[in-house]
């Protein structure tokens, strides 16, 4: 049975913005699905609100809607596009939930749309915990004891049966949000209540604890003929109790006998059949009691997942692509295995290497959040490493994590042997509670002489893994004994490399430098070899050049074809706040651009979630950590003609100097130029020459200097450490008290680097500009006016293209300044400039805040808003094709308004204050598009999950007198729309003075009922609160944190409040339309012709 002929148009739902638990992996799966379905001649209609995705590029699907992901908007798309089928299993939980809503609302039935991949009934059985348990019972598979409850008293009944500790999981929440383990009764009550609130259907599962059990995942595929295969087994290094997304995981499973493994395989098939996922991929999680082998099913995802992306990268088997093909009727054996081309997709990959995934966290951004790892996912990204042994893969993954560690210790971050060396007691505490640093504490435990039995008892980590760590420590000791590079023999040096020690660690252990180690080992012929990921353990020839490094005898890379050039693209590594999918998008476009130019593209990246690490994105793929050594090792082998460092975010940029010094040809903007833009002195001189203004600024190396500088610069001032990403420890100070507090923190974070102090421009409008320069000409790709005022990190603020309030002459001035800067700096490729526009003495004054000669986070947004493929054009420029040669001679003129809004992970970090500031904390973004600003903004809010109410009560609270003035105006407009207003005494008085009716509510310390009570009771639908003080300890902070908990939108800046009011007004008169970007871009192109 080949493809189905009775369906023609297929609706694919994306996963929306990047959030914790749902990241680039669904861009990867969605993009694969689009390609796979179009290849078969289907017309694909895609809906996704996230512009920073490859799948929303205009040529990925036939029709692309960058619209909010709500069932109402989807119905509009369905009305226009009339799809025959919807494929809901490739867009994460978001798509699955939306498809279920469409079904429940009768939309699918009304328009005759068939659900393919998984039917609603199967999704329900897989997702609804009680139904799932029942189904498992029918097929004689054990699940955790416990059951679903809808109230706290019922939960207490269950507790009486199962005892503490107990696990609490709310139904239908993303990434297990609200899940946790309760160790005492009080905690139990709290967690159950929170779970009931969070669950969209108000139910939670209360279960026996399986803490410390071994945890496994099986990635299963099934076709319409009921053929089923396991693509990959995954074993969690961290035992049950830590969400699998937060666990270190290993593929394949290593500590199961064949008998035990086959039983799990049988069970996996029984689950997928019983749940009734007809075609496609599912992920099934198991727990195994280590002492007896008792196996229980934890859960299943009736869709492709983060783990299936990992499994795809780990095996070379493209799960999402095959899932899409199976959904339209193909059977596994009718599809070929892309990697071997000769064999079929109906088989189970065999891998001859070990894969280790390590999650990356962002707790430094949320100091108030609890960094203990639980069954609720908290990580923001992950890195994957491939090695021929577990030890090699683990160390590689740890250095690929880019957290300053270069493996399991023996690096700059190692506390062992320093004054901060942890005591055995500290170690006991740290290993017993899983947190992001636990793996390094396992080493400390072994170094401190803790027996493995005790370590196993404290951690529940399988003894096999602990022994591996012990072996790494043994190698470390051996190397320390040798003590010098001159004294080490070849065999030991090779063995050290095979154990995963990088040159940087060897330099520490042998008292040398990284480059000396590199030189010496190359002299001795100890060089990295590269092996293929081929799905079949070399049983068949692989045609796909997907490689990983190791330290074996044979290398499998292919020589450079004669007459062809090779360019290496350095990716962004694991997702983190400030560096994520936007940069991966740029890297993918680099690959496409190079291919178009006939240049071999070589991708280097370590993030398994991404499109860039799909095996057919580039001509060669190296799944490797982004460290100097790893990149140079690849370059040694493949001899690149160019290396692109400006697209992968800060990661490759940080390597640029060292790579260039080692002789790699960095293309595009030179390393000198990059550094010049970062050197404040040189940069100031350049601005002076160009007669551009900059806020007063200073540099301080000591606290004394800092005090002198701030006295000169004046308040408010912005204090931050230099050479630190994403606005870390950046704060605005209004007085000496604040200054003293924050400057101390900045020095602490700066770790010896100076602290920067800038005059902060209050109430200024911030503007982001992306441009492309070829050294001769400049194209201004986009001018983005921020919604929030300057001071909110550009990655966290909303912004609009074209500018919604700036007068044309200011925009022209901005463009001219940008051009000057790019040309004078000598940028070749991309540059991003941040300006502040401040009204001073009756006229708008332009200040340059920052210049970054690299791809910015906004490149994909600008590309989607203007239709200009910004990254692609820039890469061609870097590869030597001028803008003129590319036929680009005018700035793109968008025909519509696009608003980008940021999306935050606050719901995962209970109690954290959500107020926006100079430190970036958003994980993702959405885009709203319309003919006018107010509707585009409204769409961006809906897409970001901010439910602007149509009726009800709005709480207002503002700090400064000027703000109160503006709020009065807004309050009138809200009253006109029929809203009721409430406020605490201060704000209420200002409003009352202006003759506006307002209900006064108590502050938190004024007793009950106070604002919090109103919030809990659902009497408040929206909060406008501009902050006086920050932090979870303040009243305001608690209210804002509570707003997250109760799902009430909370707007924390005046400009955003104003934009919201505009949007709410517009929503009363206009309905939200949808339009495919293919149609919008046609308009843009048409309107661009005359100019």
């Amino acid at each position, binding site marked *: 049975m080949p493809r189905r002929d009775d369906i023609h148009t297929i609706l694919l739902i994306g996963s929306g913005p990047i959030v914790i638990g749902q990241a680039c992996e669904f861009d990867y799966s969605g993009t694969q699905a689009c390609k796979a379905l179009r290849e078969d001649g289907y017309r694909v209609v895609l809906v996704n609100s996230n512009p920073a995705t490859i799948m929303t590029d205009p040529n990925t699907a036939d029709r692309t809607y960058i619209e909010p992901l709500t069932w109402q908007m989807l119905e509009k798309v369905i009305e226009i596009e009339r799809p025959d089928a919807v494929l809901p299993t490739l867009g994460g939980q978001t798509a699955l939930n939306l498809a279920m809503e469409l079904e429940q609302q009768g939309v699918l039935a009304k328009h005759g749309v068939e659900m393919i991949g998984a039917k609603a*009934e199967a999704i329900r*059985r897989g997702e609804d915990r009680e139904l799932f348990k029942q189904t498992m019972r*029918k*097929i*004689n598979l054990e699940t955790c004891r416990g059951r679903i409850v809808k109230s706290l008293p019922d939960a207490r009944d269950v507790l009486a049966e199962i005892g503490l500790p107990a696990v609490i999981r709310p139904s239908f929440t993303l990434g297990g949000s609200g899940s946790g383990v309760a160790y005492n009764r009080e905690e139990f009550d709290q967690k159950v209540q929170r779970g009931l609130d969070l669950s969209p259907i108000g139910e939670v599962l209360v279960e026996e604890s399986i803490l410390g059990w071994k945890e496994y995942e099986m990635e299963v595929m099934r076709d319409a*003929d*009921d*053929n089923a295969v396991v693509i990959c*087994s995954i074993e969690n290094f961290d035992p049950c109790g830590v969400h699998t997304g937060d666990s270190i995981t290993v593929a*394949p*499973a*290593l*500590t*199961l*006998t*064949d*008998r*035990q*493994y*086959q*039983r799990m*395989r*049988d*069970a996996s*098939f*029984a689950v997928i*059949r*019983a*749940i*009734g996922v007809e075609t496609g991929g599912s992920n099934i999680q198991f727990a195994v009691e280590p*002492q*007896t*082998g008792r196996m229980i099913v934890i859960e299943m995802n009736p869709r492709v997942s983060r783990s299936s992306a990992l499994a795809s990268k780990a095996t070379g088997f493209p799960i999402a692509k095959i899932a899409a093909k199976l959904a339209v009727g193909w059977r596994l*054996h009718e599809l070929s295995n892309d990697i071997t081309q*000769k*064999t*079929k997709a*109906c*088989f*189970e*990959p*065999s*891998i*001859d290497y070990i894969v280790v995934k390590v999650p990356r966290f962002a707790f430094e951004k949320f100091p108030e959040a609890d960094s203990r790892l639980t069954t609720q996912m908290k990580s923001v990204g992950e890195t994957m490493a491939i090695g*021929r*042994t577990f030890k090699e893969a683990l160390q590689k993954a740890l250095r690929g994590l880019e957290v300053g560690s270069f493996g399991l210790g023996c690096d700059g971050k190692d506390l062992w042997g320093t004054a901060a060396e942890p005591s055995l007691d500290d170690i006991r505490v740290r290993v017993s509670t899983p947190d992001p640093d636990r793996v390094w504490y396992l080493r400390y435990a072994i170094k401190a002489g803790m027996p493995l039995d005790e370590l196993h008892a404290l951690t529940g980590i*399988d*003894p*096999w893994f602990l*022994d591996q760590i012990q*072996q790494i420590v043994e190698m470390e000791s051996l190397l320390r004994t040798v003590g010098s590079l001159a004294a080490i023999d070849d065999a030991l040096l090779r063995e050290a490399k095979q154990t995963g020690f990088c040159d940087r660690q060897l330099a520490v252990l042998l008292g040398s430098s990284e480059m000396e180690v590199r030189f010496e080992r190359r002299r001795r012929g100890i060089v990295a070899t590269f092996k293929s990921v081929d799905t*079949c*353990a*070399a*049983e*068949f*020839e692989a045609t796909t050049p997907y490689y990983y490094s190791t330290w*074996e*005898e*044979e290398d499998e890379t292919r020589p450079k074809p004669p007459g062809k050039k090779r360019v290496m693209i350095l990716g962004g590594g694991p997702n983190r706040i400030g560096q994520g999918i936007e940069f991966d998008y740029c890297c993918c476009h680099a690959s496409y651009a190079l291919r178009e130019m006939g240049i071999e593209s070589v991708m280097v990246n370590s993030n398994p979630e991404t499109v860039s690490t799909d095996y057919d994105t580039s001509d060669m793929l190296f799944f490797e950590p982004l460290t100097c050594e790893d990149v140079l090792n690849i370059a040694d082998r493949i001899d690149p003609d160019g290396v692109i460092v400006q697209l992968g975010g800060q990661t490759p940029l940080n390597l640029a100097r060292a790579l260039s010094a080692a002789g790699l040809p960095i293309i595009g903007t030179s390393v000198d130029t990059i550094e010049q833009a970062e050197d404040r002195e040189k940069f100031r001189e350049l601005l002076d020459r160009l007669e551009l203004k900059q806020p007063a600024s200073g540099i301080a190396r000591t606290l004394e200097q800092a005090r002198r500088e701030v006295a000169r610069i004046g308040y408010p001032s912005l204090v931050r450490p230099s050479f630190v990403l994403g606005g870390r420890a950046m704060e605005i100070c209004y007085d000496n008290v604040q200054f003293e507090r924050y400057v101390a923190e900045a020095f602490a974070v700066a770790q010896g680097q100076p602290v920067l102090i800038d005059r902060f421009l209050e109430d200024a409008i911030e503007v982001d500009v992306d441009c492309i320069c070829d050294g001769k000409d400049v194209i201004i790709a986009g001018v983005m006016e921020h919604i929030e005022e300057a001071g909110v990190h550009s990655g966290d603020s909303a912004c609009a293209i074209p500018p919604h309030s700036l007068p044309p002459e200011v925009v022209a001035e901005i463009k001219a300044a940008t051009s000057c800067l790019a040309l004078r700096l000598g940028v070749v490729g991309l540059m991003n400039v941040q300006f502040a526009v401040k009204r001073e003495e009756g006229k708008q004054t332009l200040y340059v805040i920052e210049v970054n000669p690299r791809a910015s986070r906004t490149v994909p947004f600008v590309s989607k808003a203007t239709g200009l493929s910004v990254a692609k054009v820039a890469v061609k420029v870097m590869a030597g094709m001028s803008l003129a040669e590319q036929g680009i001679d005018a700035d793109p003129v968008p025909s519509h308004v696009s608003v980008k809004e940021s999306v935050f992970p606050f719901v995962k970090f209970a109690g954290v204050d959500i107020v926006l500031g100079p430190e970036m904390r958003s994980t993702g973004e959405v885009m709203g598009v319309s003919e006018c600003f107010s509707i585009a903004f409204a769409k961006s809010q809906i897409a970001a999950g901010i439910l602007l109410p149509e009726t009800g009560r709005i709480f207002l609270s503002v700090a400064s007198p000027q703000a109160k003035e503006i709020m009065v105006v807004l309050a009138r407009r809200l009253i006109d729309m029929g809203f009721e207003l409430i406020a605490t005494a201060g704000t209420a008085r200002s409003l009352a003075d202006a003759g506006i009716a307002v209900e006064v509510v108590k502050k938190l310390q004024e007793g009950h009922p106070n604002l919090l009570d109103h919030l809990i009771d659902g009497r408040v639908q929206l909060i406008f609160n501009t902050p006086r003080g920050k932090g979870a300890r303040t009243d305001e902070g608690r209210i804002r944190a509570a707003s997250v908990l109760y799902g009430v939108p909370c707007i924390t800046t005046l400009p955003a409040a104003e934009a919201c009011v505009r949007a709410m007004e517009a929503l009363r008169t206009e309905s939200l339309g949808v339009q495919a970007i293919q149609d919008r871009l046609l308009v843009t192109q048409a309107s661009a012709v005359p100019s």
Partner: protein
Amino acid sequence: MVRAALALEDGTVFVGDSFGARGTVSGEVCFNTSMTGYQEILTDPSYRGQILAMTAPEIGTYGINETDVESDALQLSGFIVRHASRIASNFAATGTLNDYLLKAGIIGLTGIDTRALVRRLRMCGAMTGVLSTEVLDHSQLVALARSAPSLVGRDLVREVMPQTAREWTESLDDWSVPLEQPSEGGVYAAKPASPVGVAKHVVALHYGMKWNIARHLQSSGCRVTVLPGNASAADVLKHKPDGIFLSNGPGDPEALSSCVETVRLLLGKAPMFGICLGHQLLALACGAKTFKLKFGHRGANQPVMDLASGKVEITAQNHGFAVDEATLPAELIVTHRNLNDNTIEGLRHKTALAASVQYHPEAASGPHDAAYLFDRFRQMMG
């Protein structure tokens, strides 16, 4: 650490560390792509005369236990892994891989680029090799490899078959019974005809039979009498079998002319089922020929299509020879086919009640997908 080296007849030498026993052995060097099940593989008599490399790099992780045993001895000549685990981690474990090999006198080699070895074998085909902890001189070792006997034409069955007849008494344990698979919506499909009632008597010709085959036969409702592979047709018929089973076994089937003759005589006398070598013997008995595959099928992920149902099963395989389709007589029908290289995986006789598969429905190690074949054999016996 004691060093060990492997030389192939083409002159390639791999040097690594020794584990298990020490000494010098020769054999056909081949590879297995299973990621689990090394203990079953070590005890599988079909590996007699072979030096086996595992492609999965971490071996020995879950140790050795008392149940995952497929014969009374370790059968292969040498065992090669990328990294041998020094500890055993599993609740069922009773010892380490190293001790197991040591006790059985099997030479192990670890720490070599096993992928390079596998690629060599894939490109050049299976080769004779010598594994040694004593002879480490490359040219000497290569010379040994070149003078070692080839597997082709050798009767290895004699070395692994039992000397006497015995009644089989063991059935599958709970852990090895394939989980019943439900049909759509979580309801069990109708169970196959229950094997209650009078047990059918199967005579199994043991050419190197894996124990799990006998366990499966017993669990599907048979009484099993195991006879040495060289038993005559008269010996077999003396037991009045309801069914005759032809087992797996090592080496070149064409070297077993008397066994082939026996099968020819037995064909049609009682329902017959063969696995692996047994499948090849059935084909030879019907007049087909076998040929040596370039590097064989050894692993747990070989896709096989049941041509009657169109369904695919993932199978465990271990064979270096296969039935040549061009020589297939008219009375043999191909029932199963390998999806990777289209070789014959299953046959059925047109007139006599006889069927066979090239792969291992008994798994151990490997997937349980094909376990239904034992029920089919049971049904053949009425």
